[in-house]
């Protein structure tokens, strides 16, 4: 217990801070008088009290955190906050089970965006705002986690950028340096959010929808306040705005930050991931557009391209909006889109999956082994953006890729064993572990995850957390060495 008390102490502060976020939907609810005020009142009280008590009990154990504590803190934060976040849902919708509510909030905080609720249009605005807000906070937390915290713990896609940087970033302690990094990233995140709200509003959304969908877009989540998602508007302009901001949010936020600070686009030019992210995503859009037209799904090429653009970008960036039921397309197209969501988005973005940088490294490592067969004497370093990537990082990426595939296989088998048909099981697991949202067939874009049993819902919840925290962060806590050290 003594070893986790300092972690709980920090966690309690996070929880106390988190209780303040309920004020946002509370204010909206109070202004609109939508009848959900009581839910937030009680949620604030319970959350605050829980945080305060934990803090009081662990106050004496407070000390500076070590790397090992970092893993635990990250895991506990990402599991306990959704638990508190369920409070307004549970209080307002008494018939909702905790399993379903927790799935919904984990889906929000991990920016997955798969929902278990139906009749979204009838829900109070403040509840929908709360769902959107969770995604937005989840995205924010993710950026800082990926850019500032995970590299310190020695995992995550961004680590290769940091490995060469000497100085405080290599320190194993969580130093104040992170606060500086975080502040800059938050500023960029908030700045782009404001632009996005305005763009949605000008494109024809109501102000509320603009805010709610911006939250969902920036976090690459995919929650909508309408059952029909973006099909609700059926507007090419709104879809175009969403596509642009989904792509922006799929790029490393530290690249955005550098570009903003240097007031030049040079940072984008030097980002080795970004061009591949854009190239892979947009060429897939073209391919799927042509495929849909050729398969006569849409009689007009431009209509085919429009639907291909929005839905492919949405799934590839792991957002999960839908403007049509793409489950009805020939199965190659949605499968390809799901595959893209595994690796398309950049590290340090709010997207999910194993990230473009890992895919690039795996690809180059594969190519290196092939070249080595022909040239046994050759020195073949793996390079990224002209820089040599140390072998230790290659090993870490290989291990990650193995764990990732292994997790998908095991969880798919578990889902199938529990009675789901294979495509649904596989797509639900992939969509969850990549934090994408909609899967195929029974969990496709036209339906919700409500069809799953409680057990299956928990499997998806675990998959979402595993994927969001980049597997290793979670798995390390369950090793014996972690607790022995």
């Amino acid at each position, binding site marked *: 217990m003594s070893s986790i008390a300092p972690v709980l102490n920090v966690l309690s502060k996070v929880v106390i801070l988190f209780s303040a976020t309920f004020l946002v939907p509370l204010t909206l609810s109070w202004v609109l008088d939508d009848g959900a005020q009581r839910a937030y009142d009680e949620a604030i009280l319970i959350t605050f009290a829980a945080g305060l008590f934990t803090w009081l009990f662990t106050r004496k154990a407070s000390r500076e955190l070590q790397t090992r504590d970092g893993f635990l803190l990250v895991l506990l934060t990402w599991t306990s906050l959704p638990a508190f976040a369920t409070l307004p849902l549970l209080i307002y919708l008494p018939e909702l089970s905790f399993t379903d509510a927790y799935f919904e909030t984990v889906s929000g905080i991990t920016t997955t965006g798969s929902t278990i609720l139906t009749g979204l249009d009838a829900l109070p605005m403040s509840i929908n705002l709360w769902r959107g807000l969770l995604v937005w906070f989840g995205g924010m937390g993710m950026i800082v986690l990926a850019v500032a915290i995970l590299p310190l713990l020695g995992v995550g896609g961004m680590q290769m950028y940091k490995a060469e940087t000497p100085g405080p970033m290599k320190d194993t302690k969580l130093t104040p340096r992170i606060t500086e990094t975080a502040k800059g990233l938050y500023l960029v995140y908030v700045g782009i959010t404001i632009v996005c709200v305005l763009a949605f509003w000008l494109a024809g959304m109501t102000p509320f929808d603009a805010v709610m969908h911006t939250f969902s877009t920036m976090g690459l989540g995919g929650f909508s306040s309408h059952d029909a998602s973006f099909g609700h508007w059926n507007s090419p302009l709104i879809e175009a705005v969403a596509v642009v901001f989904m792509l922006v949010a799929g790029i490393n936020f530290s690249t955005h930050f550098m570009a903003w600070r240097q007031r030049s686009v040079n940072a984008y030019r030097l980002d080795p991931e970004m061009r591949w992210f854009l190239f892979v995503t947009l060429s897939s859009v073209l391919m799927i557009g042509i495929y849909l037209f050729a398969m006569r799904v849409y009689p007009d090429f431009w209509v085919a391209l429009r639907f291909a653009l929005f839905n492919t970008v949405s799934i590839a960036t792991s957002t999960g909006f839908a403007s049509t039921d793409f489950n009805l397309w020939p199965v190659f197209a949605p499968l390809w889109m799901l595959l893209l969501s595994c690796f398309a988005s950049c590290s340090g973005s709010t997207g999910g999956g194993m990230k473009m940088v890992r895919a690039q490294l795996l690809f180059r490592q594969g190519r290196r082994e092939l*070249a080595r067969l022909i*040239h*046994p*004497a*050759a*020195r*073949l*370093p793996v*390079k990224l953006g*002209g820089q*040599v990537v140390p072998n230790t990082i290659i090993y870490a990426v290989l291990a990650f890729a193995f764990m990732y595939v292994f997790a998908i296989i095991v969880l798919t088998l578990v889902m199938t064993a529990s009675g789901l048909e294979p495509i649904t099981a596989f797509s639900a697991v992939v969509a969850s572990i990549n934090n994408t949202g909609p899967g195929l067939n029974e969990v496709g874009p036209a339906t919700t995850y409500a069809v799953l049993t409680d057990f299956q819902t928990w499997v998806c919840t675990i998959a979402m957390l595993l994927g969001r925290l980049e597997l290793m962060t979670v798995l390390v806590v369950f090793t014996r060495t972690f607790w022995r050290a």
Partner: protein
Amino acid sequence: MKIIILGAGQVGGNLAESLVAENNDITVVDLNSERLSLLQDRFDLRTVRGHAAHPSVLKQAGADDADMLVAVTQSDETNLVACRIASSLFNVPTRIARIRSADFLGLDASYLAEHFGVNDVISPEQEVTDTLRRLIEHPEALQVLDFADGKVRLVAVRAYHGGPLVGHELQDIKRHMPHLECRIPAIYRRDRGIVPKGITVIEPGDEVFFLARKADIPLVLRELRRLERPVKRVMIAGGGNIGRGLARRIEGNYDVKIIDHNKATSDLLAEQLHKTLVLQGDATDEELLEQENIAAMDVFCALTNDDEDNIMSALLAKRMGAKRVIALINRSAYVDLVQGGEIDVAISPAQATVGPLLSKIRRGDMVAVHSLRRGAAEVLEVAVHGDAKTSRVVGRRIEEIDLPEGATIAAIIRNGNVIIAHHDTLIETEDHLILFALNKRIIPKVEKLLQVGFGFF
């Protein structure tokens, strides 16, 4: 001229040799007394032992009344400091520094002049790299020299059976290609120079020098021998300064492989080169060469620090099927030994460096001097001044100029344009003449001819 040379290494030694031969007072400074005494035994020069950048050493070497200081030590920093001191303490009029590192080379010439007192920079590695690059561009050539920023090139090539012009008179080339402008200032037959006339017959095995516009060079080459197909694959042995520099320069245009035996060096190469395949191993290792398909290589360059290694690996590569092999050879005795045998081209780094320096010490307004045939012949680019009264060249047609036997004017550069010389071309003031001297002995006569009379000043 009183010249101080700092550094008695490869470059310094070779430079001293060439300069002594041209009747200059040479003082060589080095820390290593063995090297100094070796030089002193061979040539008529003075030596001073000491640190090349120290004022006391420079004073002892006679910097007070020296006309020129050439700093060619291994260290860029020493060279720069020595130039600075020679300029501010001793007022030496001309100060030349050898610079190797790309960082310093990236600086502006005016910056170096102002802050380090460097009038001119020489960079042997870069000279050699350039030479190699041109040879890879024209794989048939023995030597390629650029003039007027590369607009015209002087090419040396061995004539072989199969070239349409071989066995025919030179003037036949005019009948084959009436529009081609080309000048052949010299032919070497069994190491003896000939100034060719229109009726001279080219024999197989002749070493022919010709000057033409860059684009016309393949046309002329085709007249003299079967044309090789353009180079695609290049293998480099040795990842030192020259090997690495060459690989970096050509990796965009050719398929390059580079071999180095040192693990740390190969890792560094692999990091710095992006398209080149870096191999760690011995360039004289048959198995490695076999494995890397040496037989498919268009050019093999042996560029290590070791003459013997270079010769052996080049011979091996040739034997195993490399189309053309080039070896970097420092010792001039070896150069004579191997060139023309199985090794197609032997490059002496020292000679590549001496040329640019020679242009600084010659009388007359020399723009560039290139040594040919291991220093036996020279090509000069020289600016002419004055008018018909003060100069013995300006205002005259080429046939009217009283050139010494063995000297030929091959081309004229006028305001950046190239004019291939004919017997009736009129020379104007400020022209740059490209002048071929078959034999080094006639150089003083040429210098004298080109100097302006006293009336000019």
